[in-house]
C-alpha cells in the first residue's frame, strides 16, 4: 500500500475517508464525541471548493444534507446519540425519497445526555429501528483507523449504489484514539459515482423507476428534468399516491434493495474462525479487546476465534450462522446490554450457547473483562 | 395606446368550486353563480379587463382573453 502515513484520531480517519470518496457537502451540529469531524471538514472542504455549514440543530443538518444530495452532491453529517435521535426524522425521509447520504454516529453513553465523553455502543438498535415505519437500513462500523477510512469510503459507495442513507456507527474510543493511518493513493479503492439519468430533455424521466439491475438513475435539481420528491408514498414520477399497489410495491422495493441486494456482501473480518471452540463476535473498539484475548489464547494452544462484524445492518445472518457452526461457545463482546447479542441468538442454530461479555460503565471493555466471562463458561482453570 | 377589451372570459367549470369570490369582488358585476354553483359570466360587455377575478380565483379557474379594440 503506497501513499501517505499519518498518525490521527479515528474522527480524522473518517474525514480522510470522506474526502477520498469525494465529499462535496457537510452539514452538522457540534456534539461530543464527533465534533472533530465537523471542525476538520470546516477547514478542509472549502480548500477544494466544497461546502460546509453548521446548522441550527441535527434535524436541520440531515434536511440540508438531503437537499444538497438532490443537487448532485456527495453528502455527510456527523453526530452522536442525542443528535442521532434528532436525525431519525430526516433519515426516514431519505429512506423514503431514496436520497444518498452518509450519517456518522460516534457513539457515547445514553440514554439521553448520558455520558458524553465516554464510550458505549448503545445506538446499534437505534440505527436499525430509530426512524418510524417499516424500513431497512445499512449500518457499518470499524475497529481501527484503516477500517474507519475504508468503511467511510464504502458507506459512500453503498449510498450511491442503492440511493440510500448509510449509517456509520463508530464509538468514542475509535473516534478519539490515535493510531496510524495509511492514506491510499487515488484510485486504489474503487469508487461508485452517482448514476445520472441518460434520459434526454423533453423525454419523460421516471426518478423512481428502477432499472433492470435495481438502480435508479438520478437527475440533479436544477437540471432539465423537473420532478417531485416527497416523503409520502409515491409513484414512479415522485408524486404522492395512496394506491395500495403503489404503497405495497414501494415498501417492498425499499426493503428488497437493502435486505436482499445490499446485504449480498457484508463486511467482516475473521481471526481463527475455522476451528474455534469458542468464537467471539464483536465490532468497533470492543473487537480490539476480543482480538487481544484470541491472540493470547492461541499462543497457549487454545482454540479461540473472532468474527469481527463491520456490517451491522442488514445483520449478516448467513455469515454468523456459517462461522459459528462449529463453535461450542459463542461470546458476543459489546458495550451495551446485548443489542447485537440478540441478533446473534436469532442467527445461530443453538442460541443457548450464546453468551454476552459486555461493559456498560463508559469504560472500554478490557481483555480481563472478557477472560472473566470465559472463566464462567469454561469453569476454573481458564 | 389602443384600449383593451374582453374577448373571452373562460371559466373552467371542472376546477371552479363556487366560492363566489370573483362574483363578489368584480367591480362591474360581470359574473354570477349558475344553478350548479359554478361562476359564470353574464355581463361580458361590462368587463373592464381589470383581471381581478382571474388573480383572486383560488381555483385557477378563470382565464381572461383580451383583444385590442379597433381604432
Amino acid at each position, binding site marked *: 500500500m503506497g501513499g501517505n502515513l499519518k498518525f490521527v484520531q479515528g474522527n480524522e480517519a473518517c474525514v480522510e475517508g470522506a474526502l477520498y470518496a469525494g465529499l462535496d457537502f457537510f452539514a452538522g451540529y457540534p456534539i461530543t464525541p464527533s465534533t472533530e469531524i465537523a471542525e476538520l471538514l470546516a477547514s478542509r472542504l472549502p480548500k477544494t471548493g466544497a461546502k460546509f455549514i453548521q446548522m441550527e440543530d441535527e434535524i436541520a443538518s440531515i434536511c440540508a*444534507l438531503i437537499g444538497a444530495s438532490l443537487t448532485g452532491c456527495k453528502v455527510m453529517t456527523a453526530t452522536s446519540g442525542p443528535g442521532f435521535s434528532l436525525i431519525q426524522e430526516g433519515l426516514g425521509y431519505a429512506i423514503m425519497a431514496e436520497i444518498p447520504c452518509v450519517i456518522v454516529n460516534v457513539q457515547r453513553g445514553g440514554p439521553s445526555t448520558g455520558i458524553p465523553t465516554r464510550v458505549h455502543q448503545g445506538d446499534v438498535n437505534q440505527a436499525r429501528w430509530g426512524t418510524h415505519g417499516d424500513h431497512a437500513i445499512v449500518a457499518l462500523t470499524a475497529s481501527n483507523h484503516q477500517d474507519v477510512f475504508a468503511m467511510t469510503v464504502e458507506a459512500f459507495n453503498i449510498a450511491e449504489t442503492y440511493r440510500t442513507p448509510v449509517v456509520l456507527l463508530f464509538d468514542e474510543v475509535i473516534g478519539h484514539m490515535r493510531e496510524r493511518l495509511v492514506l491510499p493513493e487515488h484510485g486504489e479503492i474503487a469508487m461508485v459515482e452517482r448514476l445520472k439519468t441518460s434520459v434526454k430533455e423533453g423525454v419523460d424521466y421516471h426518478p423512481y423507476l428502477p432499472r433492470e439491475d435495481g438502480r435508479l438513475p438520478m437527475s440533479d*435539481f436544477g437540471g432539465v428534468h423537473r420532478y417531485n420528491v416527497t*416523503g409520502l408514498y409515491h409513484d414512479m414520477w415522485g408524486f404522492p399516491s395512496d394506491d395500495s399497489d403503489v404503497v405495497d410495491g414501494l415498501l417492498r422495493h425499499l426493503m428488497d434493495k437493502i435486505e436482499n441486494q445490499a446485504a449480498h456482501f457484508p463486511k467482516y473480518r475473521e481471526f481463527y474462525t475455522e476451528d474455534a471452540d469458542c468464537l467471539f463476535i464483536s465490532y468497533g473498539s470492543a473487537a480490539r479487546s476480543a482480538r487481544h484475548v484470541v491472540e493470547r489464547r492461541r499462543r497457549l494452544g487454545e482454540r479461540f476465534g473472532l468474527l469481527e462484524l463491520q456490517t451491522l445492518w442488514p445483520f449478516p445472518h448467513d455469515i454468523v450462522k456459517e462461522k459459528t457452526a462449529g463453535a461450542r461457545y459463542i461470546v458476543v463482546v459489546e458495550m451495551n446490554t446485548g443489542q447485537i447479542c440478540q441478533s446473534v441468538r436469532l442467527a445461530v442454530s443453538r442460541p443457548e450457547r450464546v453468551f454476552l461479555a459486555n461493559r456498560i460503565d463508559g469504560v472500554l471493555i478490557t481483555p480481563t473483562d472478557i477472560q472473566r466471562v470465559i472463566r464462567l463458561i469454561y469453569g476454573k482453570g481458564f | 395606446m389602443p384600449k383593451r377589451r374582453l374577448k373571452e372570459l373562460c371559466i373552467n367549470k371542472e376546477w371552479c368550486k363556487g366560492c363566489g369570490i370573483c362574483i363578489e369582488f368584480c367591480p362591474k358585476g360581470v359574473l354570477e353563480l349558475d344553478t350548479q354553483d359554478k361562476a359564470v359570466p353574464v355581463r361580458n360587455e361590462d368587463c373592464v379587463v381589470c383581471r381581478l377575478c382571474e388573480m*383572486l380565483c*383560488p381555483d385557477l379557474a378563470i382565464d381572461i382573453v383580451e383583444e385590442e379594440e379597433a381604432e
Partner: protein
Amino acid sequence: MPVKDYIRERFFPHIWCSGCGHGTVLNVLIRVIERLGLNKSDIVIVSGIGCSSRIAGYLDFHTMHTLHGRALAFATGIKLNRPELNVIVPMGDGDALAIGGNHFIHAARRNIDITAIVMNNRIYGMTGGQYSPLSGYGIFASTAPYSSVDQSFDVAELAAAAGATFVARSTTYHVNEAAQMIQKAILHKGFSVVEIMSQCPTYFGRKNRQGDAVDMLKYMRDTTTPIGSGAKGQNPELIERGVFVNKELPEYCSAYDEVIRHAMEGR
C-alpha cells in the same frame, strides 16, 4: 394568461377547499413567475407539511415536499450548492413558526437567498382546525374549545428581528399588492419573507364566526391598512401591509464563496 404552462394540470382541480386562500397564493405566485420570465427549470419549490405544502406538487418546477417545518433546512442545502437557482419556500403558519420556528429564524439570520412565503391562515387546516402560533388570543379552534389563551407571533416583526433582509405583508384580498411583494422578494438578494394573510373558511372562518371566504376577504380588507397610513393612527388595531424591511447585507452563498476563496489561498 397561460397559467397552465406552469402547473401540473393532471392534478387539478386541486385538493384545497372552496374559497381557500392557498389557491389564491398559488395563482399569484404563478403570475409573478410569468411576469419575471423565469425559466421553469431554474426554480425550486420546497414545501413542508400541511395544506400549504401541497402547493409544491401543483407547480411544474423542481419540487420538493419535505417534512413538517423543515422546508427551509432542505432549501438551505439546495441553495448553498446551486446558488443560481431561485429557491422559493411556501409555508403554512404552523409549519413556518411552530414546528419550523427554529429553522425560520436561523435561515433569516444567515440571510441566505431564499424566498419564504408564509401563508398565514391562523389555523392547522389539514389536521382539522387546531390553533396555531398565529391564531392569537381569544380564537376558537378544535384544540381551543373555550378560546385560545396563547398570544400570537407577528411574523413580520419576528422575521425582521431574526435578520431577514426583506420582509413584507399582504393578503389574499390585495392580490395585486401581494404579487408586487412576492415579486420584490424573489428579486431580493438575501432571505426574504412575505407573509400573505390567507383565509381558511372551512375551519378558522366557521369556528370564529367569520363567515365564508368572501366575508373573510372583506374582513382582511377592513382590518388592514398600508404601512404609514393615517388610518392606523385613528385605529391602532389595524394590521399594516407593505414592505417592512428592505436592506442589503452579505448574502450567505456569496459570503461562503469568500470562505472558499480564502481557504484556497491558504489563509
